[in-house]
């Protein structure tokens, strides 16, 4: 007698804020996760990864790993109850290893645009592979960790990074997929770099911001999260959610301030 599948779990505060509910496609296309030196937003990407690959849904993931090797994410997600190696073998996860990404042409000279075009091509090929066999119409999430490494590969050229993001953004509407990008907000806090953040604001329809508590470091509360939902990319703020979080070995807890005591 086959064991009955576990009952679907209730969505957490982040999933509720993002309108993710119990599986299904997100009602947005491009989400930026912003963090800072004091509070890493990597746990949000892990959370998205686990949710997209969960057995409750038919989601698939294309993960651009610029910051860490596959083994890092595999180790982290195992503790969260998700085996990335198995998901990769099942064609649900396509991990594009981009450690030490450099854009060089045949002569070894920098060719940033060609490099980004090749990267876009690799994303397309991953989506093609995901949807070629045993594809049951599940939602594809493209996760990029993280934007600063793209800027490094582009030798600081914001223009090339934004061109690449425009292509990724048009892909979300053509291919019915969504894009989640981690960005270190404090890298762009100077006046010259602030325009880059403005550009990103104009193209995103969700912003997830992980910050430290204004009161300082605490043992049971690791930071606060703000989720901004816009009515359109760069448009009006439709809704604002704010809650706190605690990052644990096997996941993350989200809760409203004062609700845990």
């Amino acid at each position, binding site marked *: 007698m086959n064991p009955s599948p576990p009952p679907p779990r209730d969505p957490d505060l982040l999933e509720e804020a993002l309108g993710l509910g119990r599986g299904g496609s997100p009602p947005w296309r491009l989400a930026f996760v912003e963090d800072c030196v004091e509070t890493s937003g990597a746990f949000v990407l892990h959370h998205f990864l686990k949710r997209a690959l969960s057995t409750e849904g038919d989601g698939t993931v294309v993960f651009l790993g610029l910051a860490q090797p596959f083994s890092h994410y595999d180790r982290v997600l195992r503790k969260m109850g998700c085996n990335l190696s198995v998901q990769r073998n099942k064609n649900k996860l396509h991990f594009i290893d981009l450690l030490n990404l450099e854009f060089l042409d045949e002569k070894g000279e920098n060719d940033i645009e060609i490099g980004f075009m090749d990267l876009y091509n690799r994303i*397309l090929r991953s989506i093609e592979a995901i949807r*070629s066999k045993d594809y049951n119409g599940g939602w594809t999430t493209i996760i990029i960790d993280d934007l600063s490494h793209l800027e490094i590969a582009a030798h600081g050229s914001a223009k090339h990074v934004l*061109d690449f993001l425009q*292509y990724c953004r*048009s892909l979300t509407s*053509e291919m019915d997929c969504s894009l989640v990008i981690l960005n270190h907000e404090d890298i762009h806090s100077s006046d010259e770099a602030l325009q880059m953040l403005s550009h990103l604001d104009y193209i995103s329809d969700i912003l997830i911001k992980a910050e430290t508590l204004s009161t300082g470091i605490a043992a049971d509360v690791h930071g606060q999260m703000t989720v*901004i939902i816009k009515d359109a990319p760069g448009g009006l703020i439709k809704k604002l959610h704010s809650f706190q979080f605690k990052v644990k070995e096997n996941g993350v807890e989200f809760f409203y301030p004062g609700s845990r005591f």
Partner: protein
Amino acid sequence: MAESISRSLRDGCLEGEHAPALTIEDSLACPLGSHVFDHFLANLASQIADGTSQARGLVLVALNRSPSFYIDLLRRKGVDASLVDKWVRILDCYSDPLDWKDRIPPLMNVQKPSTRENVSFFRDVRDINKLLSSVLDLGKGFVGQGKTRFAVAVDLVSNLLRHTSLPSVAGLLNNLRSNDQISCIFWLIHSDLHEPRVSTALAYVSTVVASVQPIMQLTDEHRSRRDFLWLEKNSCKAKFYVRLKRRNGRVKLLAEELHMDQVGVKFAAVTSENSFVNKSLLPKVQFNLQLSDQERVDRAKVVLPYEHQGNGEAIQIYDGRRSLSDDQKDPHLVQPSTFSVMTDAQATSGNGEIHYIRDSDDEQPDSDEDPDDDLNI
């Protein structure tokens, strides 16, 4: 004001004159520019479909949003789909602006979205000359040659400026404006993505500059780019400033208010209630944080303890060796008391007074220096 802009776009240009050109600019502080652009686009498309405008067709250069977005928009705004297909041409600079898709293998086994007849791909936004000729060819293609004119809309000049220089973009807009077959032209720019000279340069190419600004201006408290609560308060309403350049050279500045609702953007005359917005934002507590009119008057009447105010009182210098009640008179001192005591008469009148006596003649009069500054505590 918005109505007059719509009429100006509808009426187009006079013989021998350049086409009217409208710049719509906004910023993240009030990101309603896209909605304003959509409003004028839908209005003009309706007028073209009704045959009431000088323009007999519309070419939309889509850099920021997909062609399907605009087709859906016009359908939602009530423009007949068949007339959209007939009189609106969209130059798709959004899907493949740098010609990447032609240089990589196409997707296999993946259903591609269907293309529409009135949408043409443009794959090299860096070539401004080619963009200009594509727009003109597209317009002439459905309105024909001769004196028939068409309108042009560019959904985001900021994206063009990422690919090419300001002189090139200004040249493109100027060439379009001065073309004999262009009835009117309008575009959107996000002013906070560029240096101020960009907005200025585009203003010189325009006959009308419409600027969307927040109702409440940024204060120092809100300077942080991410004061989201402030942004939320400003989200649905904005100020709509319009700078009109008349043919005779006169520049008029007008203002309206705009607000967003379910249907779209609505414009209204400026009301005075918004001048009280800041006051109404005081926290609602049980004690009064504001001054009444009488309290303001009394505060204005308070004489400050500065010697330069010359209110007829003698300058007093405190000599600590003398007691407060000393009756002896010193030629250099008048009353060696440290503080004056409010008399009963003054107390009953309710008037406050401040009396200040310098410690010594060495102290500079009306000085802001703290005499304890040199203490190293």
